[in-house]
């Protein structure tokens, strides 16, 4: 990265009369039309006027101010930043879907529908579920979809008193937010000191008003909820359903399936576990799986098999509704299928244990300098509660910023909320031991300098395209468009 390279906005490169488009000069016959004046745009449209080379150089330089998984190690806890195979990207181009309109006759999109169906079946096998919908666009969207399935299930039984959803206090913020959007009241259940759900507290909250219990397993501190059989039994005995937040599915690949753990509904983040890129914040995909008996409540449209073996698209009557105009972020589905086909049954089964090995290796290489609040082994990720020696006051934020100078992305910080100085590290299985060793050496150096030269750590980063930005100012006086900036 070139720290000195000043990157203007595309608007600042605009020059009247320049253009970057190439369009045909078709002469259509009998094509006269006029937009009536009151229906026309009258305000001048202020877009940049730039030529194509300028646009290409602008965004290429801009990309140099970014850090992706391809740039370096990205141990962002809870986000599963594994390598995004290039074959996945290439298969999108090969699958012949670029020019398929969603509303084409089914007979002309059999290949696309086969991709959907094949992935749906593979995810059902991996999740231990009866059926999946691939329509939801993201993890949070999947949570919402799953909760709407649960809502519809209870309503179909005229069980209208079930208005509450139980969520552990360690859950991702999306869990309560999704439950709220689906119309539920949120009840929090406590965590024990080891980060797992307090089963007694959970039992005391289960009654005929509870629609579902949402769990992440392994949970957000990277621990397996070993009481899950007992929890599933209690939840089902109370007439509620058990929801699996698939954010942390990666370490379970090859080890155990949510369906076998007693979960009724689950979502999977294809952009985490199944290697599709995060795109700087999307598009992802959050397919939702359900156990047998709940399939009919899944959202429309559905891909179905016709009697003659061909595939079709249907709108079912028992569905809770629709969460997307069509069948989801389709090219993301292609990438996930490509990954599953490449790894195959045996390859997928290796993913979980290797992700877990990488995490435990880092944890055991650093827990003499960083405070490990929960005894291991961890699963795919773990949490440190800051430095063991906090005497110089160096914080988790400062440690994270310091890492940026060494070519590493920062871990997730200040989540989960269970600890004051949470640093959450998730290496994923695609990192080599050498990369982990380099990261470990850097973390040790930072821990040592935090004591010997605390000011050095407190003022980091030094080598990034910008130094610490003033976020309070940004929120206090929002400047959110180029027009604001020009004021």
């Amino acid at each position, binding site marked *: 990265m070139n720290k000195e390279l000043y990157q203007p906005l595309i608007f600042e490169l605009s020059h009247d009369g320049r253009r970057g488009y190439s369009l045909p000069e078709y002469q259509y016959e009998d094509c006269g039309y006029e937009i009536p004046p009151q229906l026309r745009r009258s305000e001048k449209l202020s877009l940049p006027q730039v030529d194509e080379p300028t646009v290409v150089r602008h965004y290429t330089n801009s990309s140099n101010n970014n850090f992706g998984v391809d740039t370096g190690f990205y141990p962002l806890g809870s986000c599963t930043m594994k390598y995004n195979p290039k074959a996945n990207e290439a298969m999108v181009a090969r699958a012949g879907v670029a020019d398929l309109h969603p509303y084409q006759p089914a*007979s002309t999109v059999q290949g696309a529908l086969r991709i959907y169906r094949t992935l749906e079946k593979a995810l059902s096998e991996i999740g231990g579920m009866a059926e999946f919908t691939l329509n939801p666009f993201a993890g949070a969207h999947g949570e919402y979809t799953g909760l709407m399935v649960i809502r519809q299930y209870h309503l179909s039984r005229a069980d209208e008193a079930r208005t509450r959803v139980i969520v552990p206090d360690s859950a991702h913020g999306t869990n309560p937010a999704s439950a709220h959007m689906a119309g539920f009241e949120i009840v929090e259940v406590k965590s024990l000191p080891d980060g797992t759900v307090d089963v007694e507290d959970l039992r005391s909250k289960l009654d005929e008003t509870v629609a579902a219990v949402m769990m992440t397993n392994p949970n957000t501190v990277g621990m397996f909820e070993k009481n899950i059989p007992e929890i599933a039994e209690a939840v089902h005995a109370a007439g509620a359903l058990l929801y699996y937040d698939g954010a942390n599915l990666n370490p379970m690949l090859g080890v155990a399936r949510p369906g076998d753990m007693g979960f009724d509904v689950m979502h999977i983040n294809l952009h985490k576990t199944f290697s599709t890129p995060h795109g700087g914040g999307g598009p992802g995909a959050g397919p939702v799986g359900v156990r047998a008996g709940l399939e009919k409540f899944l959202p429309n449209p559905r891909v179905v098999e016709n009697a003659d073996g061909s595939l079709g698209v249907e709108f079912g009557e028992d569905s809770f509704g629709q969460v997307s105009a069509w069948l989801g972020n389709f090219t993301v589905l292609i990438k996930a299928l490509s990954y599953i086909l490449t790894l195959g049954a045996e390859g997928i089964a290796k993913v979980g244990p290797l992700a877990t090995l990488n995490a435990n290796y880092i944890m055991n290489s650093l827990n003499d300098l960083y405070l490990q609040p929960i005894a291991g082994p961890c699963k795919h990720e773990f949490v440190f509660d800051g430095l063991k020696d906090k005497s110089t006051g160096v914080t988790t934020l400062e440690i994270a910023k310091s890492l940026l100078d060494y070519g590493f992305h920062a871990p997730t910080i200040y989540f989960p909320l269970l600890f004051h100085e949470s640093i959450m590290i998730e290496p994923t299985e695609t990192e080599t031991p050498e990369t982990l060793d380099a990261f470990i050496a850097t973390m040790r150096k930072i821990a040592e300098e935090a004591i010997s030269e605390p000011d050095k750590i407190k003022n980091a980063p030094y080598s990034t395209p910008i130094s610490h930005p003033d976020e309070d100012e940004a929120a206090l006086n929002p400047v959110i468009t180029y027009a604001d900036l020009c004021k």
Partner: protein
Amino acid sequence: MAAENYLPHTAADIDRMLKRCGAEKLDDLYSDVPEQLRLKCPYKLPKGISEPELTRYFDAIAAENKPLRCFAGAGFYHHYTPAAIPALMSRSEFYTAYTPYQPEISQGTLQYIFEYQSMMCALTGLDVSNASMYDGATATAEAVLMAVSASKKKKRVLISATLAPAVATVIGTYAKGAGIIVETIPDDRGETSKREFEEMMGAGDVAAVVVASPNYFGILEDYSGFADICHRCKAYFIVNSHASALGSVRTPAEWGADIACGEAQSLGMPLNFGGPYLGYLCCTKALMRKMPGRIVGATTDRDGKRSFVLTLQAREQHIRRQKATSNICSNQGIMTLHAAIYLSLMGAEGLAKVNELSAEAAHSLARKLCDTGKVRIKYPDKPYLNEFVLEIADQKLSSDKIIEAAAANGILAGVKLTENDLLVCATEMCSPDDIEQYAVMLKSL
């Protein structure tokens, strides 16, 4: 082994690493997973395949897909994708990054989102844009939730019958959880009935009104007076549009809208059988703190250098949990890059030209198809841009018959509305020859 190019560990690596962990075998790291839950047999999935085999697999899939010369729209349009866009979007510094939580090493992402927000505000005429929603349907549903939340106790929302059915259905779905009552304003010959609208507003308990421009039938409706009536009744006025049209038609701000939303796929995004697309959501400054999703703002760093950061995060789920404006977090990030590059390349002039070519192609097509005597324009006195409804005049024909026969000829004739009505569109991708071929095909039926 097919997976090994992604899984670097050798047997020696694993042994060395296990030692550091005080474990003997990988299984020891899972001692907390009860035996009865363990996967007993391997996944019932095929064996992994190599890259050459993978390409054969997807080539076979591609052979089962038949791209057609596209005269279908219904919210999703076949526009040209400038070659520079896929080239730039394949920069893996962009597409392999996460949400820009670390601004120091995410200025690339943050800057293009800021540019995107600026461009969407320019297009819609409103003050604030978020950093994207999943698609046009969910963006419109979130617009409704946002308006209802801003209007405190009112729970009744009116949506026009001229909205796309998929958008209306998604609004209906999202309304269930929020306890919102959605009522449809009937249409009057392809347009929102103003008389019914005024009557339905009478009770004074409406939180928001949603209309479309252009509407589902391609018609450019005249919404003069709608915003005034809404605002007099303290209801928010929401205008749904597909983004490229806004380069030429009266903007949501010019109609007096408080919120503009819809599908941005028409900004040259490949059809890709339904996605990924891009929902946009813009609003007035007054509603800014009710906005769901990410927003990027400008600030300065310690050295006084202009910098971009995620801002106004107190609205969001990772801070507010169930009290957040929405559960949405990361959404369609890289598609905002697509939109920003597209709008940079096209500029106002290119966008107007795309609309002009599309409108000319559509009007030429409409006349040529009507000249066959098999169909007629259903709403002949209504102005439209690139899309229109055909009514089938020939008793022997139906929407399905036309679509089927056209598909056999490599043409996507349109989208079926009813047995007798077909929604047809054209863009700059339709040459005069393509139009001629469609007309000849129809005539032969």
